[in-house]
């Protein structure tokens, strides 16, 4: 990775080549955060004198606690459901490699193309007893009118289904990919020792793909916390008022664009960023997912270079 030690490279051209990405990273990764922090103490109708206690004002907003319960309820169902289902399905796919499973895997990727506004359209249809391809099943359960399903109290479950259906397939394939990277020798050895398929899955495969499962958990958690498009579209276009400021991001959006209160909106955005950042740092430093990046100290790089020189000599 490190180039020749004797002729030290002139780094100017390298820095020039890196600069477009670096500029984007600064402009759209770092600068917005600085601007949000500057914006937090600005004067607003709810904070007429300005100041940092706007965080307190946001925490006391009467809409925050309901949004928190909604999102927590959503996450409590969505994250474990995703992890358990995806791990179980990928293990089932990995049991053997019959040729027909190729088609099954292709089918699993299809819901991933349905996101945002198309997902809302499809779920409107799926849960509308007069239109749904599953209307027979719905009628069998006694559901004949949309109002039996589409109510605020059911929204958590509906959104869990929407998010789960959109994401599960692609994660099944990704975890299946990680299972396929387990060496066949390990699996053979376990089989020779008398492991059943179930033991093989729980005692050998699961510990070996643990870091990918954590990686998925963090991405699913961070994404779930920021749920916006589905409740927002349902609320504004399909069933008016069903999901008014239902999620944190909707509240943040409403503070910014309905109330024009960018101080509070920035404060809420910054607060929401903290769990996502902690999740990211856990994946980077507490799992060995990216260990080559985090552990590769200059000592190790030097050692590698020395070893290379020795081999050459």
């Amino acid at each position, binding site marked *: *990775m490190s*180039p020749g030690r004797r002729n030290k*490279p002139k780094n100017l*051209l*390298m820095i020039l*080549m*890196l600069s*477009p990405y670096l500029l*984007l*990273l600064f*402009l*759209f*990764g770092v600068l917005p955060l600085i*601007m*949000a922090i500057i*914006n937090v103490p600005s004067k607003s109708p709810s904070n007429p004198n300005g100041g940092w206690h706007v965080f307190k004002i946001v925490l006391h907003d009467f809409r925050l606690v309901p949004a928190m319960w909604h999102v927590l309820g959503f996450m409590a169902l969505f994250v474990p459901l995703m992890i358990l289902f995806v791990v179980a*399905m990928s293990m*089932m796919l990995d*049991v053997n*490699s*019959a040729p027909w*499973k190729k088609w*099954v895997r292709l*089918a699993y*990727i*299809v*819901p991933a*193309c*349905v996101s945002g*506004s*198309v997902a809302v*359209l*499809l779920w409107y*249809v*799926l849960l509308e007893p007069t239109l749904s*391809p599953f*209307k027979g099943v719905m009628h069998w359960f006694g559901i004949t009118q949309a109002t039996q399903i589409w109510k605020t109290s059911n929204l958590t479950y509906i959104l869990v289904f929407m998010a789960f259906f959109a994401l599960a397939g692609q994660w099944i394939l990704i975890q299946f*990919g990680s299972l*396929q*990277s387990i060496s066949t020798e390990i699996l*053979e050895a376990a089989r020779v020792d008398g492991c059943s398929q179930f033991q093989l899955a729980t005692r050998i495969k699961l510990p070996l793909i643990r870091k990918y499962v954590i990686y998925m958990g963090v991405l699913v958690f*961070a*994404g779930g916390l*920021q749920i916006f498009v589905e409740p927002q579209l349902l609320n*504004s276009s*399909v069933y008016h008022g069903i999901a008014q400021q239902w999620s944190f991001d909707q509240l*943040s959006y409403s503070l910014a664009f309905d109330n024009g209160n*960018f101080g509070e*909106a*920035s404060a809420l*955005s910054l607060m929401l*960023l903290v769990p*996502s950042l902690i999740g*990211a740092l856990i994946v980077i430093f507490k799992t060995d*997912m*990216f260990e*080559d*990046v*985090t552990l590769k100290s200059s000592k190790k790089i030097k050692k590698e270079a020395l070893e*290379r020189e020795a081999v050459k000599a």
Partner: protein
Amino acid sequence: MSIDFKKKVPVVGKEPRKRRRKVGIGHYAVNVWLIFWAVLSVIPMLWLVLAPSKTDREVSYKNPLSFASFHGFVRAWKNLQDFNSGVLAHWVINSITYNAAIVLIASVTASLAGFVISASRIRFKKAFLISTLIMMLVPPVALVIPLFIEMNKVNLIDNPLSVILISSLYPFGAFLSYIYYSNTIPPEIYESARLDGCSDFQLYSRIAFPLSYPLLALLGFFAFVGNWGNYFMPYIMLPSPEHYTLPVGLGALFFSTPAINPGNGGTSVPILKPEIALAGILVAVPVMIVFLISQKRLIRGMLAGSIKE
């Protein structure tokens, strides 16, 4: 970090660990369940693709998964074209041009960044990689309000440049490129090229770039898939209908027609369920085609940097 991008992907590979063993009822149950979930995964998309073949009335009363006629597609397409004096054409063109610009800028900047980090000895390499990883793992939605404030300051709201530039930051692509170059090009090659008088830029243009085609395909694939269906960012940054992308336009169609919510009032052209479904197809099908073609790439890319061999 040793992922081999040229190696046949294990996903569709035939593993040698196949062995004849007793097949129990549990085995069949598992297979039936796997197929059941596959069917369930395809049904909504099937509905979407078949709905425009029917009239609005047929969508409600005919078998949801039946096909009516090709004429239905033509009729729905004409109606969509007439909506708001042909604004749909703008949305299609916007989606294509914004995405083309994003895919191009994002792929070029990310591949250059990955190359520099793998081939140079510039300072703060580790800090750079860690900040890229953080940006990669924090969902983009988290920064939307701060980004809006920033774009508002520089008067780029309602200017497509805002969405194009913001979406061109591609930390995942930069990381993927770093892994790719680290694994495909041994540092000794750069060393000897330097001895032969290659400048740093020639190292990229003559050595790294010609070896980058698989990487560029991966970068383009992920940039396209990640941005084509993006709703939140263009929704916030581009309020004028003529600047909408297809997903935002589809949201606007919901809002402005009685097709889904009768409370929305009527429109001069019949924008009903078949028309909305056809607009949905325009958003979903390009991604589906790319996904189905590149299923292997998705998995390999998502696991990049972590598969040990």
